């Protein structure tokens, strides 16, 4: 079952469709405008203090799911629930929601305003939340956040500009900014993929420590299955807007059943593994999400697809405790 009782975030049949912008003359044609089905029916939940990874390649819809949960992108249909209640759509409710659910972005070089001091960047969520704090308290909160993010002594960083910091430090600033309102849920969109390998681990450890200390749940979005394996409790594999498989991290890695999951595992580079020719690499590329696909989304590339796969879309079926797969082979 991918829905849990005590979930902090719960998503049910979420769909996010984008209409492709048409030229002027298409208003006269009778054809339906193409729709990009970025997310096409996704259901899962994240427990309190749990780390769930959404793993997929580009075009899988994983980032869109994250943004849709935080309402940075409007869901076309389906429900998103936070702490038991649907996410508010009114201005005030949304405002309150945004303080408890935050986002960490991928590019540490682009997600900080180059013209602001670090202290202003980290304090901004406080300012925007409209909390009426004295300068002292505001200052103390900023320092606290910086230190929690591992930037100590905080004084060294308060009045610097982003360009003075390294990639890893900037990402910690982003994290500090996300922490300052003491959220319970963070969507982390590829938070370490632009950092050097030796710096990544520091950030990952930080995220885990924060989870342990502050009971923060994460939706960890990544294309790197090994990263997902390291940090998450559960992994969901996405392809073309749908979840192909979801379950405990170890289960997915060691006993992944979906052909796509297995293909991803086969392609995982292992450091030190000397050339192994004849490795099964999936052919072709992820098709364009604007094209309507009959049946299973993966059927076009699946080495084991048969007739039923091309006509019917498989539902997620439980194959073990907490482990579900959407495939007719199972």
């Amino acid at each position: 079952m991918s829905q849990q009782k005590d979930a902090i975030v719960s998503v049910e049949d979420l769909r996010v469709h984008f209409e492709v912008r048409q030229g002027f003359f298409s208003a006269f044609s009778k054809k339906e405008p193409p729709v990009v089905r970025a997310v096409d029916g996704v259901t899962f939940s994240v427990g309190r203090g749990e780390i769930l990874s959404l793993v997929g390649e580009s075009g899988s819809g994983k980032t869109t799911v994250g943004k849709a949960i935080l309402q940075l992108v409007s869901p076309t249909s389906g429900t998103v629930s936070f702490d038991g209640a649907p996410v508010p759509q009114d201005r005030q409710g949304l405002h309150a929601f945004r303080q408890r659910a935050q986002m960490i972005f991928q590019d540490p070089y682009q997600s900080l305003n180059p013209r602001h001091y670090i202290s202003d960047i980290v304090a901004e969520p406080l300012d925007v939340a409209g909390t009426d704090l004295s300068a002292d308290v505001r200052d103390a909160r900023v320092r606290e956040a910086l230190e929690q993010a591992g930037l100590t002594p905080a004084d060294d960083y308060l009045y610097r500009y982003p360009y003075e910091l390294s990639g890893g430090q900037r990402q910690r600033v982003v994290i500090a900014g996300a922490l300052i309102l003491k959220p319970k849920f963070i969507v982390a969109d590829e938070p370490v993929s632009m950092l050097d390998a030796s710096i990544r681990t520091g950030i990952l450890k930080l995220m885990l420590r924060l989870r342990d200390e502050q009971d923060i749940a994460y939706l960890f979005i990544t294309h790197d299955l090994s990263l997902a394996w390291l940090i998450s409790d559960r992994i969901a594999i996405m392809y073309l807007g749908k979840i192909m498989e979801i379950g405990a991290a170890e289960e997915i890695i060691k006993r992944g059943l979906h052909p796509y999951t297995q293909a991803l595992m086969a392609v995982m580079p292992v450091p030190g593994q000397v050339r192994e020719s004849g490795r099964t690499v999936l052919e072709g590329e992820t098709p364009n999400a604007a094209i309507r696909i009959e049946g299973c989304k993966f059927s076009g590339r699946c080495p084991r697809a048969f007739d039923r796969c091309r006509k019917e879309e498989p539902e997620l079926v439980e194959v073990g405790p907490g482990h579900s797969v959407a495939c007719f082979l199972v």
Partner: protein
Amino acid sequence: MNLLEVRNLKTYFSTTKGMLKAVDDVSFHLESGQALGLVGESGCGKTTSALSIARLLPKEGRIVGGEIFLDGHDVLLDSENELRKRRWRDVSIIFQGAMNALNPVLTVGEQIAEAIVLHERLSKEEALKKSQELLDLVEIPKERYKRYPHEFSGGMKQRAMIAMALACDPKLIIGDEPTTALDVMIQAQILNLLERLRRERSMGMILITHDLSILGETCDHIAVMYAGKIVETGTVTDIFEHARHPYTDRLIRCFPNIHGKKAIPEGIEGYPPNLLDPPAGCRFHPRCEYAFDRCRVEEPLTRHVGGEHTVACHLVEETR
């Protein structure tokens, strides 16, 4: 004789803040038909080394020392004209973010043909025909040569760039992070492709990357760079199973191994040094857990430790 021999290369950049020693006395070699992985983290000088070999440095960069022998000929002695003749025939590069290097208003076929026409005595029609063959070589349907870049996916664009790099049948191909921006499945496809092409055409290949984990599958030898210097070289087995330099060892452990235990790897404390004013002695000493007095003052020379394995570290004694 080696296909490529780089000896004591020094490439510096003049900046408003001083001289940036991007590549500071770097030596490595490559035999024909072999693949060398040049690995290191951002700012270590690997891209600059590649650009130095192809002599495509930006105007602030200058090669201030050393020799680069391509098939026995020192390319640093070439004039601009001679260089232009050699470019693409002897050495070609697949740049980082190559997919964005395609001109959107020309068809892909025309762009590949451009490279051919500049270097070979073929007419435009013949060049277009050859470009179709090249596309076939990189597993793109020939008819696509008439299409524009925006009609190609990321992976296909990268293949087109590889086709372009092969246009003049180079002896050496340098791939600067050729798969970094690609999905993991496409990355595997491209690496397989490069591997196959290299074998079929007996080309030398230098693969530059920060991702150690892909090197085992594509390269014979590896050279590890840190802060403008080479800290260790050797065969893939030498590096992965018998790493002698503390940096190499720590770096390898930063990459997770799915078949091993689930544990967050240890990172490396601190940050890479500022190349305007690198630390005295061994450049890694501020971050090295084994550093001792000598490391702080004396730069370690490269020592041989058996076969093709070399290390630049005071902890390691030379053995022949």
